[in-house]
């Protein structure tokens, strides 16, 4: 719905966003521009600084453009083998979590929902913690037991929550699912606590997973996660109209032509898959999946056709910058950065909007 393109003499900004918001396409292009800038900065900066011009040159040359090499081979290795996969991982994880968060918020019709709300986080955490305790080390395609078990744990937790929490007919709200997610999550958290208690010297490794981080990024891990995250996110974006229909509730969505039962199951599966893949390569990066969709809605409104792609771009920008911050501050967990920077920013924005979030 291109509100910006129509003449709306009567429209006034009662909702606390500009009546003539810039078109979603303009915002998306601007966002992509910012993202490109963030990528160059994030690839250039670090313990070994590479000049921005050289960074750009290395990146463009890697893309196949005829650029003369004026940099050292070491700089090229640092940029292409270490920093670039890391930055691209941040883009995938940030974008994927933002899309999954927007999908969960729309499906559960709850602004407090985030990608982890149905047990993905606790399932992944328990899987990762168990992997840390198992002394056996096998690595396949750069994926260790930790990645495999956290991915499987996230999906298994959602599957259990969906099995237990569904019910009340095809048009019942998903409140039951939300409560089941909470209960199952608590149970898994107890398992996690026990595992951490037993972990001894491996505790730090579990903590690193819980707080999230891109330091283990590699091309191979990206090759595993990127298709799942990108494919799942695109499939979610293609179903944006379902989320729009659900704005007014399950039964209203059915009256508007949405096959609620089927579409809801598909979207839950896709959002869970995206979340699980993101968590497997980056740990539990918090806040991006909750905040990015809300920030976008404050500007463009609730239309999921605009919210989902823009949230993906914003989530990617936020995580690239957060990871850069984490790196420059001496490899502190990226989850700490997203929360410390994101939470106050979010609070300010919420206070600035007139309409409260009612539950």
């Amino acid at each position, binding site marked *: *719905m291109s*509100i910006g393109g*129509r003449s*709306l003499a*009567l*429209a*006034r*900004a*009662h*909702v*606390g966003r500009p*009546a003539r918001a810039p078109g979603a396409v303009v915002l998306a292009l601007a966002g992509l521009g910012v993202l490109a800038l963030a990528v160059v900065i994030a690839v250039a900066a670090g313990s070994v600084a590479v000049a921005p011009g050289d960074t750009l040159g290395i990146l463009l040359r890697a893309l196949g453009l005829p650029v003369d090499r004026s940099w050292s081979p070491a700089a090229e290795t640092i940029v292409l083998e270490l920093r670039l996969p890391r930055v691209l991982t941040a883009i995938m994880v940030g974008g994927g979590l933002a899309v999954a968060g927007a999908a969960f*918020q*729309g499906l559960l*019709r*709850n*602004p407090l929902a985030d990608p982890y709300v149905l047990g993905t986080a606790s399932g992944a955490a328990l899987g990762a913690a168990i992997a840390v305790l198992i002394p056996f080390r096998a690595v396949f395609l750069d994926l260790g037991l930790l990645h495999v078990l956290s991915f499987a744990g996230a999906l298994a937790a959602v599957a259990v929550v969906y099995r237990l929490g569904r019910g009340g007919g095809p*048009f019942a709200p998903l409140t039951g699912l939300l409560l089941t997610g909470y209960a199952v999550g608590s149970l898994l958290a107890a398992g996690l606590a026990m595992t951490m208690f037993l972990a001894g010297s491996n505790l730090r490794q579990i903590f690193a997973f819980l707080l999230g981080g891109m330091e283990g990024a590699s091309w191979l891990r990206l090759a595993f996660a990127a298709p799942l995250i990108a494919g799942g996110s695109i499939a979610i974006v*293609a179903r944006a*109209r379902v989320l*729009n*229909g659900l*704005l*007014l*509730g399950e*039964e*209203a969505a*059915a*009256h*508007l*032509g*949405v*096959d609620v039962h089927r579409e809801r199951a598909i979207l839950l599966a896709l959002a869970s898959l995206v979340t699980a893949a993101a968590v497997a390569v980056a740990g539990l990066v918090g806040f991006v999946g909750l905040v990015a969709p809300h920030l976008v*809605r404050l500007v463009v*409104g*609730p*239309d999921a*056709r605009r919210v989902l792609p823009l949230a993906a771009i914003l989530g990617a920008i936020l995580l690239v910058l957060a990871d850069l911050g984490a790196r420059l501050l001496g490899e502190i967990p990226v989850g700490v950065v997203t929360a410390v920077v994101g939470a106050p920013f979010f609070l300010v924005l919420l206070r600035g*909007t*007139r*309409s409260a*979030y*009612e539950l």
Partner: protein
Amino acid sequence: MPPIAELAGVTVAYRERLVIRGVDLAIAPGERVALVGPNGAGKSTLLRVLAGLVVPRDGRVTLGGDPVAGLSRAAIARRLAAVPGQAALPFATRVEEVVALGRLPHEDPFRGPGPADHAAVDRAIERVGIGSLRGRDARELSLGERQLVLIALAVAQAAPLLVLDEPTVHLDLRHQVAVMELLADLNRRDGVAVLAVLHDLALAAHFFPRLVLLDGGRVVADGPPARVLAPERIRATFGVDPAILAGLAAIDPDAPELTVGTRGR
């Protein structure tokens, strides 16, 4: 003219409990029908059966001549627009964005709404007379305003049959009358058939030429208000003194507070 919606011998059971028992009902194009009856009579269930949300145990349901069971949700949504009962929005949503949701069954699924959809939204907003609310957050409106917005959504849906479940509940008298007049106007001028569940018999009798009285899952009367709301039938169906209805219709607005007494069956 063939009926725009028809139920023939429809029986609905929730588990083992029969809620609709052998109902026959046909709505002609452009008709205006109020569904009345006590709580639990099966009125709302009947609407849901018509919209294909509840599958009957027995009987035939058609919309525009085609069996509902064979229609996709989108196809049903293009034949029947239902005004949502209660609508709690999880996010700040402008009135025009709410109305635009009515275009979901018409939009191109990939390219989104086109000029025809924008025009339909503008027309619905103008038709219902909520132009001044256009940019407001729908969650901050009064209940009366909210009801008009939801009706505008259904108008934007542009289906030949408009279905409403208790559209005047919780509204003050002024908004009750406003909603009723709007429905009558949409029916008369745009030719939209209207089927509304109503609890207020006086409103139903005043604004609807045809009433269908449901009790215990059966149609016990169907016809013009004067016949359907005959005193002995009101007593039998609702278990109240029929004089109440006549009294309500003749209330003096300046009279002191009205006390209503009901008698058992």
